[in-house]
Structure formats: structure tokens, C-alpha cells
């Protein structure tokens, strides 16, 4: 049986105009990215000529825009999932049903993922420009979609988690952006610091790898790097940071995006489980949180 929360979200979200507006805006942004690329690379070039190989760069441009839009939109789509139920005073009605807190959280998360998938699928016509010229295979696009979905899953999991803690959706959204910022820039600083301090490249290879795996920017770059065959990241990391004869480390550096996807899935699941524990009314977390927030109301009852 389909998760009732997912089913209800699917019915209600597609009835309003808001989600249609989001899809329209999303497609427009992607189309604008493609348009600007053509304008810059073809019409502003010296010979006004068209090089089909440059379509690879269009792919990179579109993938980057897509990634940026997903990173920006997932917290906004998901961070109000539980706090919205609280604001609407419908969470208690859900919690007294036979649905477990985990199935409520999973339903919320899946509905966000379904919308992200809708956004991605709706931009396929824009991506098809790249494949029309045969620069990259369809497998590259499918891998990119999988990578984007795992990123959305991780951000969705974190968003639902914060949504369980904070009543205001805006606070949850801001916190997810801060976590994303820390993952993107904080991990990079952690990797670069020892290199700058020592200067001789003699740093702990495993530690460097562990610091770089959570970075979504590096993960994305690693994927694109692999797909277009430039191997900039692989060579750079291996030469300057990981220099080791260990074959596993070599494989890990070469497939950093895969490790990052695994990391994203694990983080997504962990935060979803934590969110479920938080809304469990009979659990310690849930009861403490509820008691603190509704103490005044209870005393008035």
C-alpha cells in the first residue's frame, strides 16, 4: 500500500498553483542557462561558428545550474514538512494513527523527492540539446540524475530533521543552508589547512579523503571530471594530498563521487531516523521537546 502521507502530499501539492510556478521557474532558469551558453559560445565567438564538442560545456553548465537549484529548492520544499503539520495542528491527528513516526517522515521525504524528480524530468528537454549533438551518452545523464537525487535526499533528510526541532520553517531552511555551507567550504578549509601549514604535501592521506568525501561541491566536480574525462581532481588530489601507493585510496580518489553519493545516502537516512525519533510522542526526545513547547498550553488545559 502506498504511503498515505506521500499519497496525500501528491494530491494536495498538484492542486495548488505554487508547485506549477516552481516547475515553470525551474525550467525557465535551465533554459536561460542554455540560452546564455549559446549566446556566449556561438554568437559571441570570433568565427560565429558552432563546435559540437562545446556541447560538453553546455552539459556542465546545465548540470551546475541544476545542482544549484536543487540545493536551493530542497530545503525550501522540505523544511516545512513537520513544522507545517504543527502549525496546521494536524501532527497530533497523524501521530494517533497506526502510522509510525518513521513512515510519516519517510512519506514527507519521499514527497519532496518525487517533486525533485518531477523538476529533473521536466528539464530533460533542455538537457536533450546536449545529447542531440552526441557529446555525452545517456548513461552520463542518468548518473547525474542519481547524483542529484542523492544530494536532494541528504538535504531533504537534514531539512525534515530541523523541521522537527524548530517551529518556524524559515529557521529550518537557514540551518540547512548553513549545514550545506559548512559541508562545501568547511571541509575544504579542513583539507587545505594542513597543506598550507606543512607546505610539503606530507599529509595524512586517509584523513584528507575523509574530510573531502562529505563535500558536495567536490563530489559534483568529481562526477563531472569523470564523465568528461579531464581527471583534474583525481590527479590533483592524488599528487598533492593523497600521494600513496595504496590501491584502495587510488580507487577512492578516482571515484570520489561514488563515495560522496554513499555518504549522502547514509546522512539522509540517519537524519530521517533522528527526525522520526524526535516526533515520536512516547520517545524521550519527542516528549521532552513537546513538553517544553506545549507546557504553557497543557497547564491551561
Amino acid at each position: 500500500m502506498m504511503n498515505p502521507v506521500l499519497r496525500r502530499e501528491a494530491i494536495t501539492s498538484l492542486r495548488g498553483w505554487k508547485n506549477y510556478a516552481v516547475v515553470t521557474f525551474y525550467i525557465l532558469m535551465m533554459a536561460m542557462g542554455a540560452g546564455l551558453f549559446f549566446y556566449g559560445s556561438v554568437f559571441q565567438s570570433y568565427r560565429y561558428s558552432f563546435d559540437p564538442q562545446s556541447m560538453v560545456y553546455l552539459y556542465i553548465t546545465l548540470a551546475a545550474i541544476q545542482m544549484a537549484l536543487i540545493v536551493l529548492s530542497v530545503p525550501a520544499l522540505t523544511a516545512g514538512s513537520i513544522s507545517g503539520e504543527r502549525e496546521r495542528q494536524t501532527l497530533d491527528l497523524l501521530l494517533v494513527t497506526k502510522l509510525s513516526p518513521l513512515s510519516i517522515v519517510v512519506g514527507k521525504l519521499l514527497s519532496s523527492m518525487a517533486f525533485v524528480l518531477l523538476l529533473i524530468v521536466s528539464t530533460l528537454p533542455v538537457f536533450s540539446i546536449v545529447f542531440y549533438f552526441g557529446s555525452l551518452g545517456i548513461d552520463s545523464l542518468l548518473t547525474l540524475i542519481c547524483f542529484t537525487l542523492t544530494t536532494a535526499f541528504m538535504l531533504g533528510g537534514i531539512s525534515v530533521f530541523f523541521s522537527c526541532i524548530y517551529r518556524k520553517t524559515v529557521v529550518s531552511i537557514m540551518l540547512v543552508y548553513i549545514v550545506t555551507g559548512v559541508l562545501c567550504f568547511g571541509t575544504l578549509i579542513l583539507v587545505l589547512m594542513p597543506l598550507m601549514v606543512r607546505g610539503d604535501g606530507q599529509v595524512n592521506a586517509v584523513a584528507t579523503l575523509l574530510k573531502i568525501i562529505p563535500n558536495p561541491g567536490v563530489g559534483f566536480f568529481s562526477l563531472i571530471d569523470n564523465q568528461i574525462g579531464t581527471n583534474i581532481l583525481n590527479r590533483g588530489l592524488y599528487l598533492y594530498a593523497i600521494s600513496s601507493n595504496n590501491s584502495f585510496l587510488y580507487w577512492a580518489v578516482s571515484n570520489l563521487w561514488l563515495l560522496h553519493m554513499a555518504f549522502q545516502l547514509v546522512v539522509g537516512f540517519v537524519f530521517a531516523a533522528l527526525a522520526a525519533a524526535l516526533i515520536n510522542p512516547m520517545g524521550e526526545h519527542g516528549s521532552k521537546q513537546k513538553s517544553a513547547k506545549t507546557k504553557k498550553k497543557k497547564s491551561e488545559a
Partner: protein
Amino acid sequence: MLEIKDLVKKYGKFTAVDHLTVSVEKGAICGFVGPNGAGKTTTMRIMAGLLSATSGNVRIDEVDVIQNPRALREKIGYMPDFFGVYDNLKVTEYMDFYAGAYGIAYKERKPIIDNLLEIVDLAHKKDSYVDSLSRGMKQRLCLARSLVHDPELLILDEPASGLDPRARIEVKEVLKQLKELGKTIMISSHILPELAEMCTEICIINQGKLAAQGSVQEIMQRLSHKRIIHVQPLGEKEALLRVLKEQPLVRIVSENTKDVAFDFTGTDEELANILKQLVLAEIPLLSFREKEGNLEEVFMQVTGGQSV
């Protein structure tokens, strides 16, 4: 059916529910009454599995709610005092969503939903959007929602709050139907006369403690320490007052425009004896009757005058 034993709920130093012990028989309608802050909602939330207790236990059909909250969800239908609805969802879809959440198979849902909408008189609104319904209709819809899995026990927290008199009567009618269907109902309300009318028993809770439990009549008899008797003489009252003041069990005699009222602390036999003496004294009487007590008076007496 329902056994609340030594239930305690503390928020830091504040004790919301203080060693509360209540039992409700199967098929009973129990009115849960108490002033604001007495712990009614807290107790009901614990019973519904929405709040953990500090100590004590709540048993429904011998199963502990606190130890096994999920197992009891199919036995309990809960309607909170405040609740919201979803936008962009029709009445049947709303009911279908909760039927799904209670694990009812898709094929079985339609007849259940149709039947419940008939009971709460919302069948004509089944294709309307939930957020477009009036407050009273939403209240009745929420009641139907709490019945979707055919629970044995209904926990209704202020089901008639904020409703106009007409909507209150409609909710009351639905509750009467549920009573006929044999549901055990625990209901809190601030409209005491309504509770007295429909409940088979009443629990009065004050500062988290049980102040009284029993049928309305039992409670009034137990808590009314004095009986007020009204006597209306034909003509002058002087002779009547003289005889009454001579009676040792008559405490206070007050004179009204038409009749004389007195507080009496004796038994029925002793009261009959007073009437006999008035007749023997040849005092012509138009009426001799005991004033009926009401739940509000008892409630004010038990809770020390705090409002519901």
C-alpha cells in the same frame, strides 16, 4: 474498559496530573470535568499515546497504553481540542487519507467513509473542500475521522468548544448516535448541563487530582451535604416559620416572597416527620418540595469556585 491508575505527569516542578485514578466501564459515556489547568487535556493526551506519563499506568482492555502505545491506536479514536485540516483536500479524500493511515484496505474504505459521513450528516458535503467547511462541520468531520477505524474507546477533548448553539446540538446528536452504537466515550466539555444530560458518569478533576467520580446523581447526593426544602403556605407564613424554627434538624430558614426555604440535614423519614407536624399544626400548604441540585453547583463546590 479504561483504567487510569495512579497517573502522574510532571513538567519540571509543576505537576499537571497528580496520582489520578479513574475507571470507566465499557459502553459508558464519561464526562471529564475540571477547571482550566486541571489536567484534563494532559490526561487525555496520555490516554491517546501522545504524551508520556511520569509514572502510573493507563490500561485499555488490560493493555497498557504507556508500555504499548502503538498496539492501542486501533482501539482509540482521539479528537483533540484544537485541530487543523489540510488545504486542497476534499472531504472524502480527507477521510480516505486517515483510513489509509489506519491501515484500512483501499477497497473497504468507501462504504466506511460513506457510512460515517451519513452519521455525522456530512454526506452532502463529500465533494467539498475540507477548508471550506464551517467550524461545526469540521468538528463533525474530525469526529468521523476519529471513528474511521471503528475504535472501542473515543477520547473527545472539548468536541463542542467554539461552536454556536445549533452546531453544539448537532454534535450532541452525533454523540447520542455513538452512544447507541455502544461506544465507550470519554468526553471533556465546559458545557456542564450538556454533560449531565448525555453522560452516564462524571469525573471531576481539580489541580490534577480526582475530586469526584460517579453518576451525576451519585455525585450530587454525595457532595450535597445539605438539602434545601421549599414550602409554600396558603396565606400567612408566621405559623409555618414558628413550627420550622422549633425543628432541631432545620438549620437556616429563609423567607422568600412566595415561600419559605430551609436547609435540612436529616433523613427522608425525618423530613416526612416535619411535613407531618406541619399538617398536624393545621398549616395550609400549597407545596412542600426539595430543590433539585445541578452539576454546576456541585462542580463549583468541588473545585472551590474555579470556572470550568
